[in-house]
């Protein structure tokens, strides 16, 4: 997933105007905007980005937790395989000893 996709994913729930595809259209859309209106819009955008980073941070933390868990699961699986093989070896060894006695 690209940086843009992640940005859009999060931003589209905050302010649709700030989705990547819409940004180039803003100039045209607000060409008759007064300075006062811009001030309001500017504040809205700044809040939107603050919210974006807040959600992005939560997303990243969650992702890190998932990666951490993935890492643990992966190594755990290898360990499980080792365990099975160890047991197989031990059982085989025990069976061999039984056979030889």
């Amino acid at each position, binding site marked *: *997933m690209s*940086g*843009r996709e*992640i*940005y*859009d*994913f*999060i931003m589209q729930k905050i302010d*649709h105007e*700030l*989705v*990547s595809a*819409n*940004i*180039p259209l*803003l100039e045209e859309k607000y060409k008759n905007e007064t300075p006062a209106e811009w001030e309001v819009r500017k504040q809205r*955008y*700044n809040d939107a*980005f*603050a*919210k974006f980073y*807040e*959600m992005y941070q*939560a*997303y*990243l*933390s*969650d992702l*890190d*937790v*998932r*990666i*951490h*868990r*993935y*890492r*643990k*699961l*992966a*190594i*755990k*699986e*290898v*360990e499980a*395989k*080792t365990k099975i*093989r160890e047991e197989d*070896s*031990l*059982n*085989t*060894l*025990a*069976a*061999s*000893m*039984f*056979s*030889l*006695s």
Partner: protein
Amino acid sequence: MEKHTHQFLFSRVHGIREQRLAFQQAPSPEAQNPEPQTPEKIADSNRNPDSIDTPKNVADRAQSAEKKAEEDMGSRKQAIEDVQQNVKNLEEQLRSVEGIEGEDSTTAAELRDQIASKRQDLKTLKPSEKPATDAVETGGGAVGDVTEGAATGGLEDPNKAGEKPKPNAPETKEAGNTHLDRLMGNFDSAVKEHDDAEAKAAEVRQKLKNDPKNPELQKELKQHEMEKIKAVMKAFATFFEGLKRLFNGTLFESSKGDGKGSESGTQKPAEGVANKPAAATTPEQQVKNELAKNNPKSAAETQAALGEIRENADNKIKENTKSIESLDKRIDGIKKENDVLIGKKGEVEKELNKLQGEEGKEDQILELKTELDRLNTIIEANQKAIKTLDDRRDALTKENKDLTAKRDAAEKMGEDMEKGMEKLLPMIQKLAEMLGLKLQDLNIGYNGQPIIVINNFNGNNIPVATALEAMGAKQNPETQTVEISAEQAPQASEKVSERLELWRQDIQDRMDRHGYDVVVALNEDKTSFVLRTSADTKDAMKDLKTVEGFAQKRGMQPANMQDGGLALNIDRYIQKEGYFGPAFSEESLKIEQVQDDNFAAQSSEGGTNGLGPGYPEELLEGTYEQGKAAPQVASVEQPTRNSDLGPGYPEEVLEGTYGQAQKNVEVAQEDNLGPGYDASMLEGTDGRKIS
């Protein structure tokens, strides 16, 4: 040998444990972000440096955010790739060890030494000292190594090289391709050798009647008698190999090309008996490996083990079928929704086309374009979800196919065993005749009890003596019992008990560590742990109640006992997953503890999520991360309601063998999540599901 084996096993897992330690020591996400990231802090840190002042800044700000996300994703992808590489390395390491375990492994070498040593021991015994025991012991040894030398060991003077049997006995014949065919051929050859020797001996005996003190005739008679004994030993060895192969399911396997069971006199230990189990590639091999793990010592045990394999396969197939049906429904649901969305998208596009170029409709066009983007995003996310679920369904379907093959293989093996019994029975009869014994004189015992050689014969559980009786012999309690030593017989039940004790100790440690006034004991029937308060105080009762709550959440089915104890059911983990408690040694557990991973964060003392102590690490897997993630995720409104994977998770980087396991947790909650997991464990402590 024991010491050597220990070193071997240790070296094998050492790398993995080191890796595990490295993983454990790698900073966890929490450690990487030691300071609490409050929304205010995040907002402050992000607002000030790049605030938007002019309309032009908007695009810069967006680009900056995209770039940051790109960089962050890059480092995380790298982290996952590193894990995958690590896992790959470890698996290669394991495979190479497995390879080494073949011809030249320490274990194999030790086994060969053991066989050679045993053979040498036998050579030092004279026939007159322990004839019957020697006979069976030699036969037992020959199970692992049926050679001329082994078959005659103990009866030959090692210094008389000239009397050693020829490596390729001309009498041996090959009737077919299976081990049974080969063994029956060998057996017949041995019988023929015996009969020829007996015929010659009879001639000599006749001559001796006329000239009883003739030393040449006496010597010749002795030689023929010796040949008879050799033939009997060979027959014994053949019979015991057949018996062992009967139990481990290899009797009807091809004896061609595997180097085993050849007539070259260089036979290797029987597969699954004195050799390591081969990789589980075919269903038959899988069944054999499982059988080897159970190490059945009788036909009844083998049949029971085969029945269990069939039952487990059936249960898993049923479970998978349910999951497949559930996935079908989910996929259908998403597909239907996507159809609706695609229809809607078409309408929007149509409307957009109409408005294109019209003056004064810019706002409307913009809205439609935005809507179109939104629809595309959702459709795309749905398609990803469909693919993920489709893959999972395919995997389950394939697994079911494999399981069906495995179940059928186990069934066939059971049938073959019945057939094998019928084939081996006449061998015993013949053996008795060759030894000059009547059937009632032959009572092969194990540990003082008649060995269960022919039990489950024709559906009846009968010991060999009874079977022989059925064949016309009468059981004679005074007969000589030939013992097969059980000194080194595997003690599977002891191993299980040790593991359960380790598990119990683990839970007790957790109770103690977190100040719970609770004593943990293993119930007599070994299906549950019983927790009791050590004092009848209010606090202690409260502790027990708390533990009960946690156990309930984990699906351990806590039950209050009449004496005030609390029983935690572990049987289902044992029965369903074959899980007997913490998998690793104390050393490994310490690593977990040092890292303060999982459990400490979940204890009631931690106070954040109320998961509490008292459960094996495995049972807590996933819960901790879920619990940790819950508040963070809860603050994020899910952008795509159809994606169970959350907001824009890079699913693709989690794909693959282990990614699939991850998805089991994330996507298919009803599916098999591994030992100790169940769907209830995916619940966040605040009642929310993470995904």
